[in-house]
């Protein structure tokens, strides 16, 4: 079962110009008439614009409503294909579709629907506002899904664990010629390094100290390089082990340009050992060592911006990522992997923790997305050559209150604390942007 690419519609960026419809009509009908386009943008009556377009449903209703077997979900591409040779023009498919995604083209005299232009949709190309986006995340999922999962099944992560997804996908991509370091934290905690003599992965894996991950990996990598063997040195570390007690070895390895990919899964604390504070824990957050009581209300300091510190090391590559933006993550993973063959590559992934942050597992990706959309975390990429670039600028951020309210660890926040966080977000974005404006 494959995952599929999709055309996403960002209503907030649509100004209703209709260029997409013209482009579609030109591409599909050799006419300029927007009425003949296979997507229809229209005012939704509430001040913004809606879209009628085939969603290429996973379990489509139009297909079983066709009496002539003229519609078919292509399981390779995900496109619902219409076969003119079989279509009997009965329009029953339009009854099945609740989204006006397959409609009668009166001029053509038959139903028409979006086919995503074979992977390069004309509408997306035309839209100047970024309201239409061709999401190729699925292509990446398929590619990665076809690769071997190098962790054993049945890791004992918490329900809905973001980290497990992240590490499985990462290792699939990085591949089997890898030595994996998993310092104490959730990654080994769920069994990745094995248990009682058993192993949790299909690649060589070890459990460094919380303090020496980068150093041990450097030793491994140097020896293989000396032997002329192409082996990727990969760390899957938590924020505590990277930003706090492991920072020295991280900093040293980065300064020496040791060739490795150091991926930090930032769940804002020591979640494996019972949710204690780390220097990446944000201001105001409840943890078991920054409790909420009469005298204090969560952490009283702001989080350390570890990825920006890594930029200060002029690493071969530094980037931040989020599991809510997997296309972005995969692009960065690829870049980081390449960079790790010539220097120190650092990838910082913001990873909500359903257990430690107190929210329902099903909201994991939503929480990750809200963090980005409120600028609570900022996605960017850095190389010494190109400098720092924002990869997902959020110019009109959502109120951070919505993000904070989704998480139990912020339930106690006072309005003053929320104001502090809002202020910090502004300052942090400014700091990142200042880096971005600096010449490399």
């Amino acid at each position: 079962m494959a995952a599929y690419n999709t055309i996403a519609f960002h209503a907030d960026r649509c100004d209703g110009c209709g260029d997409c419809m013209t482009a579609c009509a030109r591409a599909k009908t050799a006419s300029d008439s927007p009425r003949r386009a296979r997507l229809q943008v229209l005012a939704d009556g509430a001040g913004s614009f809606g879209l009628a377009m085939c969603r290429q449903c996973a379990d489509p209703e139009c297909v079983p409503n066709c009496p002539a077997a003229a519609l078919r979900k292509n399981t390779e591409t995900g496109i619902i294909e219409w076969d003119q040779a079989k279509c009997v023009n009965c329009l029953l498919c339009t009854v099945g579709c609740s989204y006006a995604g397959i409609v009668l083209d009166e001029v053509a005299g038959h139903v028409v629907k979006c086919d995503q232009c074979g992977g390069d949709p004309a509408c997306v190309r035309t839209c100047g506002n970024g309201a239409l986006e061709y999401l190729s995340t699925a292509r990446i999922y398929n590619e990665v899904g076809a690769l071997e999962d190098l962790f054993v099944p049945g890791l004992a992560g918490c329900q809905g664990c973001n980290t497990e997804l992240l590490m499985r996908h990462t290792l699939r991509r990085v591949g089997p010629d890898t030595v994996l370091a998993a310092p104490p934290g959730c990654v080994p905690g769920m069994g990745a390094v094995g248990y009682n003599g058993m192993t949790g992965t299909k690649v060589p894996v070890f459990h460094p100290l919380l303090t020496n991950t980068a150093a041990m990996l450097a030793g491994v990598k140097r020896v293989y390089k000396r032997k002329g063997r192409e082996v990727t040195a990969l760390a899957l570390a938590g924020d505590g082990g990277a930003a706090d007690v492991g920072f020295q070895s991280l900093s040293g390895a980065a300064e020496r340009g040791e060739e490795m990919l150091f991926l930090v899964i930032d769940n804002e604390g020591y979640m494996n050992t019972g949710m204690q504070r780390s220097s990446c824990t944000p201001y105001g957050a409840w943890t078991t060592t920054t409790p909420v009581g009469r005298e204090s209300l969560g952490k009283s300091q702001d989080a350390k911006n570890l990825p920006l510190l890594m930029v200060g090391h002029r690493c071969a590559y530094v980037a931040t990522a989020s599991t809510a933006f997997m296309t972005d993550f995969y692009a960065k993973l690829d870049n980081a992997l390449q960079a790790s063959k010539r220097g120190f590559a650092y990838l910082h992934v913001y990873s909500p923790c359903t257990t430690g942050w107190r929210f329902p597992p099903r909201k994991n990706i939503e929480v990750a997305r809200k963090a980005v959309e409120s600028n609570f975390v900022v996605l960017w990429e850095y190389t010494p050559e190109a400098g720092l670039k924002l990869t997902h600028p959020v110019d009109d951020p959502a109120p951070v209150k919505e993000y904070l309210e989704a998480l139990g660890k912020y339930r106690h926040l006072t309005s003053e604390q929320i104001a502090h966080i809002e202020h910090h977000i502004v300052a942090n974005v400014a700091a990142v942007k200042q880096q971005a404006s600096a010449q490399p």
Partner: protein
Amino acid sequence: MLKSEITQIMVMERTDYLIAGASHAALAAMHAIRLVDADGSLTVVGRDRKLPYSPTALPYVVSGRSDSNLVFLRDDAYFALARTSYRCGHALVRVEPANRIAELDDGSRLQFGKLLLATGARPVIPSIPGFEAVPYHVLRTLDDALRLRAELPRTRHAIVLGAGLIGMHAAENLSKSGARVTIIELQGQVLPGYFDAEAAAIIAGAFERDGHVTIHTDTRVIAAEAGPQGVVLRLQGGPPVTGDLLLVGAGVAPVVDFLSGSGIRCDRGILVDASMRTSVEGIWAAGDVAQAASFYDARPVLNGILPNAVEQGRIAGMDMAGDRTLQGYRGAVPLNTYSYFGRHAVSVGSATAPPGAEIIVRSDADAERYLKIILDEGRLHGIFAINTPLDAGVMWQLVRRRTDLTPLRDRFLAQPREAGRALMSRLWR
């Protein structure tokens, strides 16, 4: 129990899911079951000795629009992939709910865990004196269609009994193949139940103009006989009609005769609840054979249309497999789409306006355009259109969701398609 009986039971074939029927409801149920239960054994028994196909496609086989080899909805590979045993050419002849045994027409007995009755309907043959002696066609199976198609070239004057969808399609096909066609309809209009009289008149007009079809509505056949020129039908209050081909399209009736003695409650069809369960535990029914609550007044109704069969089949399958995401059947809504002589007609909802309903009609007979909207307390009750584009699926949702259109009333009445899309975009996209 005798030893031989015990042996028989022991060797009896068993299937977790048995689906009787192989058309839209059956296939939708099978799909729904497999989404949840990948392992349970599944058997589909179809009357016809063919891969599944849709009766709805048959008029197009008759016309030649559809290649009879390409109308099949599934192939063997699909059943293999779904690990489903597809037994075609067999019908259920008996169901023993107590033992959960179904008997097929070859005498074999199948023990089932759960049974779906999606046996569909068969054509109704009117009880007209002399009818049993005249040759006539029906159109329910692929063989029917191929037989009818074979007759087209040599048919000069065809009589179509019944102006439902089957009859109208056939009339169009016969007309296009060069035959003179006479349609005889008992009720006062063509396509009763789907379109109101005014719309029906527009449609009928197209038949008369473009197809030179003669339409007798409000007309009862009182006798039939075979004559030298073919079949002669005597009409009440009119001259007899003679044709060298007679097609009976006088409606269909659920196939329920094999259920006698089973204890499964039937009215005109098999009575089912919102989960498509019959009165007997472990047995479901869906599609043309099922009689479920009407959307409008909860009366059990037959709603023999394709989208309804798909929906009921899916609901039955989900319930059979224990899919916890199941939402119950929201009731039968009449709906259809119809293309004829290059025109298009859509009907969604009930054409019977309740008391106090607001009825808006825009009609342009010359342009053959028609639009009728029935609003009941600001909510869409039914919408009917000819040559006026509508998103039928969106309209169906508006009906079923009982969406209050009041805030958009004027826009909806002016541009129902655009307003519908705006509502869709806001409410459920």
